[in-house]
């Protein structure tokens, strides 16, 4: 597949992860819209960020419509609430047929539900576990 140079990306949740990724993607030339229910969250955004920010609750379809979710190439569900991230992901995937949806989830228990709707997941706990295992192996190999 040819690499599309400019993607329209919606990021829901402007915490540490959301704001960081928003800056990175903006810097790479993508069009980014950030949605968060607290206006104060947008203070996390860096100088690099050139997109739009929308104050709204992502579980109300109105705020996703405002973000023009029907036009999005990618939706990132990055709030700190797994259930909100699931709702945003399922709405993006099944109501608006968003091509790419990625969600961050803290509790891996419901990961099956995300996989059923073809949403890619980032699970911090599993990332940390993998990193730990790798580091632990390296250390024990050095010791041996």
């Amino acid at each position: 597949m040819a690499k599309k140079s400019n993607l329209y990306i919606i990021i829901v949740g402007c915490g540490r992860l959301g704001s960081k990724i928003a800056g990175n993607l903006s810097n790479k030339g993508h069009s980014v819209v950030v949605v968060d229910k607290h206006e104060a969250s947008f203070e996390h955004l860096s100088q690099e960020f050139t997109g739009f920010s929308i104050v709204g609750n992502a579980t109300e379809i109105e705020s996703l419509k405002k973000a023009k979710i029907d036009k999005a190439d990618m939706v990132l569900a990055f709030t700190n609430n797994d259930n909100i991230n699931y709702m945003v992901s399922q709405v993006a995937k099944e109501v608006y047929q968003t091509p790419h949806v990625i969600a961050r989830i803290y509790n891996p228990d419901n990961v099956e539900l995300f996989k059923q709707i073809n949403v890619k997941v980032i699970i911090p706990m599993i990332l940390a576990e993998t990193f730990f295992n790798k580091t632990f192996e390296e250390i024990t190999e050095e010791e041996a």
Partner: protein
Amino acid sequence: MKIILAGGRRITYNLAKMLISKGSNVVVINKDKPYCEELSREIKALIINGDASKIEILQRAEIFENDIILALTPQDEDNLIISQLCIKVLNVKNVYTLVNDPENVEVFNLLGIENVISMTEMLSGLIEQRVSSKLTNIMSFEKGKGLVIQLTVEEDFPAIGIALKDLGLPKGSIVGAITRDEELIVPHGESVLKPGDRVAIMCKPSVQTETVKIISGKD
């Protein structure tokens, strides 16, 4: 068959009490521990303390395909995930859920949840129907797809004396019954309305206002 009530506070308590008094087997799942303790003192039901949006908690309720589950939490996203876990993982057929944002009724329907109830929509619908005209009674059926409205014909109604078939009532509405002098008449196209008649109209909600306007002359 069990009825599982997931989340919610007063509504859960009252619903549980009502269902138990009718002989149902009720299970309550709630994440608030003190509330669970209070419930277990007051109602005879299996009370599970835990977050119903987690599959392991739902599994503890031993839900079977024929059981009924109601998602009653105050958060739409929690009700969505509870419903989806029940439908997609536990294969429960009877899943009912509350939503706060009325627009989520359609969203949830699109996501495969059939029985979605919006308190806001229900109440505003009731109020609109009551204030919009001289309607005396309203009943909805088929989850709101159909309505039966009843009104009393007043002296100044423009429909008086005109054959029903010539009124130009919109498609999707029909005058089903007229009560005149205590007698029920099932009307036909030639029937005419008289002052004092009580009319029962069956219609789709989309044409309710138009229908009432043609008969009463008022919005």
